[in-house]
């Protein structure tokens, strides 16, 4: 079975700060990582391969330093990586078109796995968009996946409903955080990943004249200021002080 995992390099949002003078978020120097749920997609790919055999290819559209991140997924168990180098600030039309072209160039595929959403932009757009471009079924928000030889079934968390969907191949599946616990690679696996191939394709070589349809014209920072009054040690006093403070602020009048 040929499995493709779409994984994105993102900034670690929990490390982000807002510049107090410009009120803009500071993106420079923030640690980069693989978007959390893409590791769940990777883990699921390994489970599918363990069961059905096959090959796992990781595809990332991103800057050239994303190669380091792809190595983490190779260490987890991917067989091969593809990095489509793209300029910063590309939109979903461009990202998904590049992913679609990369998938076509990879050629054979049965199942494409994505995260339900990326941790930085949190759109849940790239997966379904890619499925639309490829004209294949999409199974979103999978909480469990059962991939068999000729079909895949998934239980999906659709909010008000739990939906079970089945599809023949090829199909695109987006997974939730609850689907599994991503493994931590061993030192041996990390060392072994160095010998696994990573292809680098430029965006121009896959699709020429790609232009954004949506442009980010501004990024406004949001900072949150709170009182940060913390009571500790004597519990009874803490509770009394808290209740008094809440009463003073008028928060206890329903």
């Amino acid at each position, binding site marked *: 079975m040929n499995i493709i995992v779409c994984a994105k390099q993102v900034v670690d949002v929990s490390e982000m700060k807002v510049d107090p003078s410009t009120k803009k978020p500071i993106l420079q120097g923030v640690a980069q990582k693989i978007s959390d749920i893409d590791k769940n997609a990777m883990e699921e790919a390994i489970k599918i391969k363990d069961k059905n055999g096959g090959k796992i290819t990781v595809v990332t559209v991103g800057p050239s330093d994303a190669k380091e991140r792809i190595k983490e997924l190779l260490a987890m168990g991917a067989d091969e990586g593809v990095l489509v180098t793209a300029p910063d600030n590309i939109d979903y039309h461009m990202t998904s078109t590049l992913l679609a072209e990369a998938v076509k160039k990879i050629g054979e595929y049965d199942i494409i796995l994505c995260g339900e959403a990326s941790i930085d932009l949190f759109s849940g757009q790239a997966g379904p968009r890619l499925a*639309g471009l490829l004209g294949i079924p999409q199974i979103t928000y999978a909480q469990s996946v059962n991939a068999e030889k000729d079909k895949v079934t998934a239980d999906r968390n659709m909010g008000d409903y739990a939906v079970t969907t089945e599809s023949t191949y090829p199909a695109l599946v987006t997974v939730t955080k609850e689907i599994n616990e991503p493994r931590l690679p061993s030192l041996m696996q990390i060392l072994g990943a160095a010998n696994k191939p990573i292809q680098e394709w430029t965006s121009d070589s896959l699709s020429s004249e790609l232009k954004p*349809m949506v442009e980010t014209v501004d990024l406004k920072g949001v900072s949150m200021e709170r009182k940060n009054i913390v009571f500790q040690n004597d519990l009874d006093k*803490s509770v009394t002080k808290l209740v008094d403070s809440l009463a003073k602020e008028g928060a206890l009048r329903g």
Partner: protein
Amino acid sequence: MVLVFSDNKNLTFEMLSKASELAKNLNKKVTAVIIGKTDDALAKEYISFGADKVFVAETNLESFKAEEYTDILGNIVKETGAETILIGSNKNGKELAARLGGKLNAGCVIDSNNIYLKDKKLTAERVVYSGNAIAVEQFNSTPAIVTVPSKAFDRLKKDDSRKGDIIKKKIDAEKSTSKILKVQEMKTEGVNVEDAEIIVSCGRGFKNKEDIKLVQELADVLKGKTVGCSRPIAADMKWLPEECWIGLSGHKVKPKLYIAAGISGQIQHIAGMRDSGIIVAINKDPDALIFKSADYGIVGDLYEVLPKLTSAVKEKMG
């Protein structure tokens, strides 16, 4: 033409108000779409909430499937020449909008709560980086697709005297190779955290499902009666229904008072409650992140703090 679609009529009502405003500025009309069985009463309601026209795509599809709905909506977009498409941002709507974007090669912005024209271009703002920033996104091309979450816009005052055409058409959808085997309604308790004035939330600091009564009791004496939770409590443990789940991937709330007990305060949780009036945290770990996002905090074991707090509040409120 501004097209509006959601499988949730309340979302459609809210979007119709924004659609009317945009249409006025663009000098266009608003069309609301219904996919499924003809429902004249609903179509009339859409007109009284601002639609100039209602397009009913008659199908006998039993349940929502993104592939089929995308095909139908795509055909309607082509037939009506719609330039602006607003879609309700529930899970169905998001995957529909994204696939439609791919199919039509159109720009798409998911989850926008502020949409306007700037330099004559459609502009949509959305929260990014888990609440650390707001991105201002501008469309360079049409059609432009934007999904809108609930409560982003207030619905217009209902005007039953408004007139509009109702167009009914049979539209065939591409058959998808995927099959829906089972649809199960999730259990709900009718909780509405988005409207709640006071919320008491629980996280993984709770050891058993039964212990959730500790937050329930506090919520009761606070007359908030509303219990919320972090993602693991709803999604992993399933101790509370989906409707209590607060955060980036859950509900966005802004009560006057938000109390978080046994919640670590990861940014994805904060993203759902950062607009609350007063934030109170209870956590046994003095270094827990939640204290950075709180106005008041108590360092302590929630199993001791909550009962004490409940009786102290009861006493205070008399």
